[in-house]
């Protein structure tokens, strides 16, 4: 007779961490509720599972909806992020689509997640038909990346105009940044959303960079914490669209967890 085979769902809320445990071998369902551990949610997460599961090696899959990204976004507690962009376009993020917050009353304002001095330009240009008008110089990109690093940025987003039509320049630039950046927190806009419309692509990619240090380090702690307990299965992270992705994908595309908590709730 084989032992238990668990599939576990974990939802970390502001107050409680809810754990749903399905033993596929026995066809039995259990739940647990433990206090959430603010600061490092992975502790409460593991304690919650440990309260019902004897051997973590019996867990096949953990499915996790996380609000770590959501909270960082809402509370504006993401990492200081720099943007490297095409000359002439450092303000795309702040200019938006020329909208306003409310129809009536001209009193709203928007605060960009990246301040203007952390948005730097390099010479390069791709046209709408995908042709390269001006090739990017990786040395110039490296220099700008070092400026951002010295200014205190933890993450970088590289975004070039018309990158959706041809991402060659953007790819060369992002490789130049990755060659000197001390962490994996470097995002290329076309890796996140390779679609036309500069503000939408840039803002999504910027949030990815902004959330990556926070979400990625949390997922690292979670992963190593589970491993220490003897866990050897898969960790799946809920995406904003309700589907799931692997933990490695979630570390690369943390913006997809912006609404990871709410869909399963």
């Amino acid at each position, binding site marked *: 007779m084989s032992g238990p085979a668990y599939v576990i769902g974990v939802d970390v809320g502001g107050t409680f961490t809810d754990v749903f445990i399905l033993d596929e071998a026995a066809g039995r369902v259990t739940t647990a509720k433990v206090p959430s551990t603010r600061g490092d949610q992975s502790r409460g997460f593991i304690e919650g599972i440990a309260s019902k599961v004897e051997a973590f090696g019996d867990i096949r899959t953990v499915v996790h909806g996380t609000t770590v990204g959501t909270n960082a976004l809402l509370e504006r507690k993401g990492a200081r992020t720099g943007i490297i962009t095409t000359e002439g376009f450092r303000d795309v993020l702040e200019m938006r689509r020329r909208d306003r917050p409310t129809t009536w009353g001209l009193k709203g304002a928007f605060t960009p997640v990246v301040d203007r001095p952390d948005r730097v330009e390099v010479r390069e240009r791709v046209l*709408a038909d995908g042709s390269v008008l001006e090739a990017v110089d990786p040395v110039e990109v490296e220099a700008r990346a070092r400026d951002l690093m010295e200014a205190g940025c933890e993450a970088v987003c590289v975004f070039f105009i018309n990158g959706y039509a041809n991402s060659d320049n953007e790819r060369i630039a992002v490789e130049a940044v990755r060659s000197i950046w001390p962490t994996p927190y470097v995002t290329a806009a076309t890796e996140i959303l390779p679609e036309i419309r500069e503000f939408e692509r840039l803002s999504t990619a910027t949030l990815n960079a902004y959330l990556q240090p926070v979400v990625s380090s949390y997922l690292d702690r979670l992963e190593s914490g589970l491993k220490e307990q003897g866990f050897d299965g898969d960790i799946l992270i809920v995406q904003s669209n309700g589907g799931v992705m692997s933990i490695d994908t979630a570390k690369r595309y943390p913006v997809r967890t912006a609404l990871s908590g709410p869909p399963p709730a």
Partner: protein
Amino acid sequence: VELKARAAKLMRAQISALPQGTVSAEDWLDNDGINDEPLKIALDLTIDGETMVIDFSRSSPACAGPVNISRSTTIAACYVALKHIFGDVPANAGVLEPVEFKIDDASLLAVKAPKPVGGYTETILRLIDVVFQAVAKIAPEPAMACAYGTINALSLAGHRADGKRWVMFSFFGGGHGAHAGGDGLNHGNAPISTATIPPLEILEAAYPVRFTQWALRPDSGGPGKTRGGLGAIYEIELLEKQADVFLFGERGRHAPPGVVGGSAGAMNRFSYEQSDGWHQPPMASKMVGISIDRGQRLRLETPGGGGYGDPLARDPQAVARDVALGIVSREHAQTDYGVVLDAEGTVDTDQTKTLRSREAAQ
């Protein structure tokens, strides 16, 4: 019917809370695009118990160019202005029940066919501006300074290599006015609409143009205790053989005013490049059929919003931050706000105090 009555009741309550009497505001259109003469939009606004009288009698007569509007358009523009100020009142016709209009039939604000009205956007924006300015004099709390005040309708037209005709037509954004609660919005849409701007990537994909700049315009926000929002810089290069350029804008000679002691935002500035260099339209903000060739550029620098309150009363730290962000220059920090910064960009408290008291005395 119920909602309309409710809106009227709320509007009466808003009006009766305002001080009794008459306030005035005058503002200008650069010209009508045919005769290069300024056109006056003058408002005398009277609060009489629960009634508001909006009197445009001192405004310019009907003109030859298309900046005339009909009487109903004038009334609708005032509705929009009042709704921006008194946002809690439901959006329906009840808003105008306690409002009485005086519009001279001979004025540019009450024309009938066949007078041209195609440039109405500029005129209704100016109407909103005078309502904002007049209300600010009696109700500074809910008031806003003037927004950028022009649609900047720009079109480029030409033929592609295969002979097909192309026309790129778009409106451009600018700064919103400052208000008691904060700085104005940078690069907002016009107060008369909620339309957004097409992405530049869409424009480049659809038309033979390339933007060489799409940026906020530093030093364009009107100085004030709270600062007007920034206008924008759009620079466009032609990628096809030849194009004709048309612009219908405003605020090329009369900047968006501030209110409650705030200063005006930067004026609209349009430039175009030809083989003999850069030019500006003789009528400042309007022109037809200027020809440009491949590689030549157009540059639109749009107005910022007006400031709110005395610029010398702006928190020096807020000015230092604006300088750090590169949206106010050191020079303007000093001349507009009386704020002196040291080499690191930190406020020099003593020099700032001295400069401000000297400027206040003038």
